[in-house]
């Protein structure tokens, strides 16, 4: 199989590289671009650890062909920090125990980042539904809800004019 040339915008930076037509987006990110934040937990879109945003929509990079994303904008967990500091949701996940072993965390970060972008003040039910596509084996999810709520509160505090 000959390689195809691919142009992506990853975390705001244009990237151009050649990849096998059957290469997944996850392998391209991890192996070709060295962005190992997105994780491979299952290979079959069950766990959500590889979630990235493709043109603003959370997608599972493990079952997405890289070549199919040509010209699209990708945001990975490496791209959501807030100007060199932890984003509110990243800080809150640490403080509220939303992350234990951390392997599923990148997927949750992307999902929550998307959720709060869509709906700045979700109900607990909406949070649960949004998170249900990502599996975590450590936390039992309870502390994640506290973290999401704390992040929302922090964001709102941040928006108050000083």
């Amino acid at each position, binding site marked *: 199989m000959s390689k195809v040339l691919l142009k992506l915008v990853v975390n705001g930076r244009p990237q151009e590289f050649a990849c096998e037509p059957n290469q997944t987006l996850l392998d391209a990110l991890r192996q070709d671009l060295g962005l190992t934040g997105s994780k*491979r*937990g*299952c290979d079959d879109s069950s766990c959500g650890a590889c979630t990235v945003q493709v043109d603003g929509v959370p997608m599972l990079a493990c079952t997405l062909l890289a070549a199919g994303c040509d010209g699209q904008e990708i945001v990975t967990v*490496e791209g959501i920090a807030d100007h060199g500091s*932890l984003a509110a949701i*990243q800080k809150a996940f640490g403080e509220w125990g939303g992350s234990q*072993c951390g*392997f599923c965390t990148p997927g949750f970060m992307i999902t929550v980042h998307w959720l709060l972008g869509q709906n700045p003040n979700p109900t607990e039910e909406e949070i649960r539904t949004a998170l249900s596509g990502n599996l975590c084996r450590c*936390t039992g999810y*309870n502390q994640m809800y506290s973290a999401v709520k704390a992040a929302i509160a922090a964001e709102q505090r941040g928006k108050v004019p000083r």
Partner: protein
Amino acid sequence: MSDFSVIGKPVALVDAAGKTTGQGKYTDDLSMPGLLIGKILHSSYPHARINRIDASKALALDGVVTVVVGADAPNKYGILPVGHDETALAVDKVRYVGDNVACVVAETEAIAEKALELVDVEYEPLPAWFDPEESMRAETDLIHEQRPQNIEKEYHHVFGDPAKGFAEADHVAEGRYIANEVTHAAMEPHSTLASFELDPQTGKPGRLTVWSSTQVPYYLQHKLSIVLEMPMSQIRVIKPLVGGGFGGKSEVIPLEIIAAVAARKAQAPVKITYTREEVFWAHRGRPRTIVDLKTGVKKDGRITAVAAKVIQDGGAYCSYGVVTILYSGALLGALYDIPNIQYDGYRVLTNKPACGAMRGHGTVNVRFAFESQLDEVARAIGMDAVEIRERNLLKPPCITVNGLRVQSYGLPECIEKTAERSRWRERKGKLPRGRGLGIACSHYVSGAANSIIRSDMPHSTVNIKIDRDGGVVVYTGASDIGQGSDTMVAQIAAEALGCSLGRVKVVAADTDLTPIDIGSYSSRVTFMNGNATLRAAEAVKKQIVQSAAKRMGCAPEDVVMRGDRVWKKSAYPEGGPEAALQAAPPDAPTVSGRVEGQILRGSVQQKRKEEGPKDQMSFEEAVVSAIDFHGALTGTGSYAPPVEARGGKHKGAGVGPSPAYSYSTQVAEVSVDEETGEVTVHKVWAAHDCGRALNPVSVEGQVIGSVWMGLGQALQEEMVWKDGLLMNPGLLEYRSPSAIESPDVECIIVESVDPEGPFGAKEASEGSLAAAIPAVANAIYDAVGIRLRESPFTPERVLAALRAKQADAKRLQLSGKVDPTHPETFREHGGSLSYRGRGAARHPLDPAIRRKSGAESEPKPEQGAS
């Protein structure tokens, strides 16, 4: 409340930012120049002799570097000294579907996968054993020749006089409880990277470095040394971030050895990462357990005797099996006061992936049986489920009938608090039909008092170094697998040295850098490594205090270290650390850096000479003066469990004893849909006695996580087998609960302050799991009056039990093979109502075939009774 400045306060894990930003590196994230990828060929037969392996076609493929087979590393190993029955790759025969046959090493994963299909293996199928009770009758075709009747190990323990105990009982309950097999399913699939470096003296491959997702780097170093025939000193094991373990990484997993053997043969670094399906085959989870339990009670609720016969379906290798079967018996004790115990345990080999240690090791399934039966006897004698538990409390400090020493004991408070928060007394028995409450208790060790390899050597050693920059570096072998041990170590060091958490840097789990810690298993790390850290910190503190006393002109007893400063007691501000922080001069540095340059120029020393004695100084000043005084500032601490906590003398007494036990109580509120059989858990109140909560947010996370994992086992998780083939080797099929299925868990922390724990702390990560399953079972009984004695409580099992209760109900009009009211055939299909496949090929003499060929001896579908 408590007089601490760092511990007892919720803090983010010290490695949290690496996890939320994606910067943290797990093993599979690592790479190096020239890295090759290994892929393992697995057996498609449950039990077969390997006659021939022909890898020539695979080797001919472009990009394939080498193919590793069993003969490349035939030395046997195993996690237990009594269970050395594994080889890196199968040498003569395979023992389960998924057993390791060969490993292809290639330039890319795609090439390696392609080459796997080209390896030609000729198998000679042998009769296979899948049911433990059948396997125990085996005379021929043994799974391991040295294990007659396929019994890995059996134990028969009698404590007190069980016969007399049962004779004295007013009521005796008997029953069979079955807990089906579950697995860890940690989010990170196992991964190992192995690399040799060339020895400059000999010019040949010399030292080996292995990065691996492991809970036990030092055991891995030991097993690698056995298989590779290399001295341990030439092997360095580094544990990067580990994406969860739960026991699945607490022993040496085949890929860890195979990667090293492959790197040696390929003469290049090799990385192997399991696919999710391979993780299920590697397994080492909680075995399917059959518990025949008998409990005798007096009318007043006092337990007079307990007898348990436990059979564990251990899979094809020993793994931790001997320890698992011993835990099942030993931890019948130390929760309640039981005067007479009889225990018969059988660990049986079958042709399935090996079972091993999983969160709550050995105790969970027996606890499910015991707490369910306790509920049954309470009802039989007309006593409330809370009250019968309160009637059987231990009176510590004490030594139980089976030789376990109990000191701190927060169980009474756990029971009281869960009953109170769940409003048990007001609500129990008054909920509408279909909704119920159930209670159960559990406990767990805070580390095994005897290590796997018995010795008097310390189980943990920790070194601390403080240099003139004022930075505290803790070198600990403790393996953080997400439970937060690095944070625990940093907190203890900071608390003991009176400095801020940000000043402490933890270097962990690298066999070259850190002194030994035997690993993250049996919930030992906080208790043992925490104690070693505390001792190391105290050793350093002693030196700082000594020089500070001299410097401030007071006695060493009058020196206080707190709030990143060192105080003369007379100058120490009233009101503790907060006041101390406020009283500190505003320019006082709180982290090192800021005065580093000055210290290097020696200006602090100069300043000190000019100033003369003072009554307080900064941490940096104190450090510099201590280095001045002692030459260097380092400390070592180690921990070995006290002799009194190491248990009795009987055979098998080594497993069960612990320096301290954690205690848990849970109340579950469930509803049962009698139409669909679906059980919904609405809320769990979970109290856990962790001695002292060093980091409350972590303790809550561990307790909630344990309860949640227990709920998974209670309601939906189950490994479904068909002729030794796993039918659900994927996270969706295995049905680990998602956010939608996970109820609110209210964690109640109980602090009993253990006399030997670091600041009184005990374990928090495992003990809560076991209570969740019986709490749900008891709640289901309360809701709809059915007693489920087989987990998980799936809709099929609930419906079958509801149907069985209605004597005149019509039987399910399903084929005989899938009718849940025929447990034996039903189980063969794992409760699946749709699966009708044939499964893996079987030998004609296979017992399952023999049974089927016994003409129509299989149960026929019974016709409707009405």
